[in-house]
């Protein structure tokens, strides 16, 4: 094969190598280092460096260098407007060995920087310009043959420099996109925080209406969260069910305060007025674009019962969304374990008995079982973070009977018989 053909094949093959290296965006510095090797290896050059232009700082940062030994600098400080001058000039390789071209380099980089490049034994300077933007500089040393660069070789360098410039430019774009995405993530997190705070404020407003149920919405949110986690829900859905718990009684805002706070058994008319709150809550929550699904429906159906005797629609079994079943259990658990106007809170054994009696009728057994398992984990110390014990107050879960009561109820709830009975309903 003739020398010319061999050179040509090697140059073409080097261009292919270059494309492959530039396409690899995993490690920017490694990408630049490899592309420098391709340029050096395609022409048999013993040394070279690639520096990127750092916007704003008028700096040239050395990203890759080969054959410079310990002399490799970290940065070059550019003279003012250097980037603008390079952006407008034709991006052709300029040789320090040619008087006219050396003067051009000095005009653009300044005499000091030109001397520094020469001291590194680098003789060819190639600006990297993409879309009329100066992105960096390639500086190349002499050939291993010690011959001067031919016009063909300068053309090869120029072509490769364009590719490397695009590689650096693309990396910058990618970096900017990542930064924007990071900013957007931050903004999204801020919005989520605002949403959570707003939900909490609403929950406090709801509970303010009833002096005996202060903190009820927040507790229902927390119990719902624990139950959902025990049922294996993912974090996104768990956050959603907590919000649903916080807002489940929002409809009470439209119910008269004297009905909510009545210290006696309310009559049928008042009861009907009070029972409007799930549907009213649904209407209030529906127009809001919640980041979680089903929140209006959970508010609407949290008084439905498995046996169809609940309200507002008398839904049964699987017709009731699982989220509403969870909030229903959390709501009743909190109602039973806090003092009310008409009754003192129940002791734990009574709560367990109520669950047993109403499993498959009022409550979904699988949800009750999840609550009981979570309670058992707190009783036995399996769960270090005793969220429910804290909400229930000191001593409530510390009785010796809690553990056997829960174990027995869990076994009953998880038995096939009861689950089958529920699916029938």
């Amino acid at each position: 094969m003739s020398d010319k053909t061999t050179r040509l094949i090697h140059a073409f093959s080097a261009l292919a190598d270059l494309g492959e290296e530039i396409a690899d965006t995993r490690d920017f510095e490694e990408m630049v280092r490899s592309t420098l090797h391709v340029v050096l290896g395609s022409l048999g050059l013993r040394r070279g460096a690639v520096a990127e232009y750092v916007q704003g700082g008028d700096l040239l940062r050395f990203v890759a260098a080969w054959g410079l030994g310990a002399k490799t600098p970290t940065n070059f400080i550019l003279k003012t407007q250097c980037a603008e001058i390079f952006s407008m000039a034709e991006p052709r390789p300029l040789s320090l060995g040619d008087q006219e071209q050396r003067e051009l380099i000095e005009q653009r980089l300044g005499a000091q920087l030109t001397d520094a490049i020469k001291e590194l034994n680098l003789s060819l300077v190639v600006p990297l310009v993409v879309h009329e933007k100066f992105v960096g500089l390639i500086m190349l040393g002499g050939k291993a043959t010690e011959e001067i660069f031919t016009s063909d070789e300068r053309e090869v360098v120029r072509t490769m420099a364009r590719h490397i410039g695009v590689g650096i430019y693309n990396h910058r774009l990618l970096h900017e996109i990542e930064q924007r995405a990071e900013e957007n993530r931050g903004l999204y997190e801020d919005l989520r925080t605002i949403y959570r705070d707003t939900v909490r404020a609403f929950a406090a407003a709801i509970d303010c209406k009833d002096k005996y149920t202060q903190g009820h919405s927040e507790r229902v949110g927390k119990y719902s969260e624990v139950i959902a986690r025990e049922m294996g829900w993912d974090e996104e859905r768990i956050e959603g069910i907590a919000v649903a718990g916080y807002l489940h009684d929002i409809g009470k805002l439209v119910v008269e305060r004297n009905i909510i706070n009545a210290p006696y058994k309310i009559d049928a008319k008042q009861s009907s007025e009070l029972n409007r709150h799930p549907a009213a809550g649904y209407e209030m929550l529906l127009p809001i674009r919640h980041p979680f699904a089903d929140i209006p429906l959970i508010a609407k159906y949290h008084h439905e019962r498995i046996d169809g005797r609940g309200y507002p629609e008398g839904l049964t079994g699987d017709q009731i969304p699982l989220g509403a079943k969870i909030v229903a259990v959390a709501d009743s658990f909190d109602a039973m374990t806090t003092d009310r106007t008409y009754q003192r809170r129940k002791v734990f054994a009574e709560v367990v008995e109520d669950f047993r009696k109403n499993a498959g009728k009022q409550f979904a057994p699988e949800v009750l079982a999840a609550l009981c398992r979570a309670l058992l984990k707190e009783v036995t110390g399996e769960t270090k973070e005793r969220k429910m014990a804290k909400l229930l107050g000191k001593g409530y879960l510390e009785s010796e009977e809690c553990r056997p009561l829960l174990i027995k109820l869990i076994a009953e709830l998880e038995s096939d018989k009861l689950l089958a009975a529920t699916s029938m309903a």
Partner: protein
Amino acid sequence: MVDSHDRSPVRSERSGDIGVIYASDYLNKLSGERIERECRAHLSAGCRALVVDFKNTGLVNSIGVSIMLGVIDAAERARAPLVFSNVNDQAAQLFELLGLMRHAALAKDESAALAMLTEVNLQPSLSVLVGELT
């Protein structure tokens, strides 16, 4: 010393004061860097000459050439003669055109390379070796 991350690994051994490095089937970035590492390790360990054997090497790419120029640099700094052996015709022509053979000698095979280096009695000057061989 063996670096066996691929099918045809770069490996090396020492023959007296000479470090012999065996290149793999494709001289590219990965194998080139391994060769360079081996060469530097031999020089640091006191070797006074290096042989890079390309018996198994079919292809050489641009990055491989650049890294071999780095090996030449390292050998020159250590004033250690460098011989390439078993280089196929295509790679030999490329090395010649790109100027590598101005800084390293070429031998038919590994024994010839070792003989060359022994004959010149490891003179600490590459130019002496290259001069004697040409």
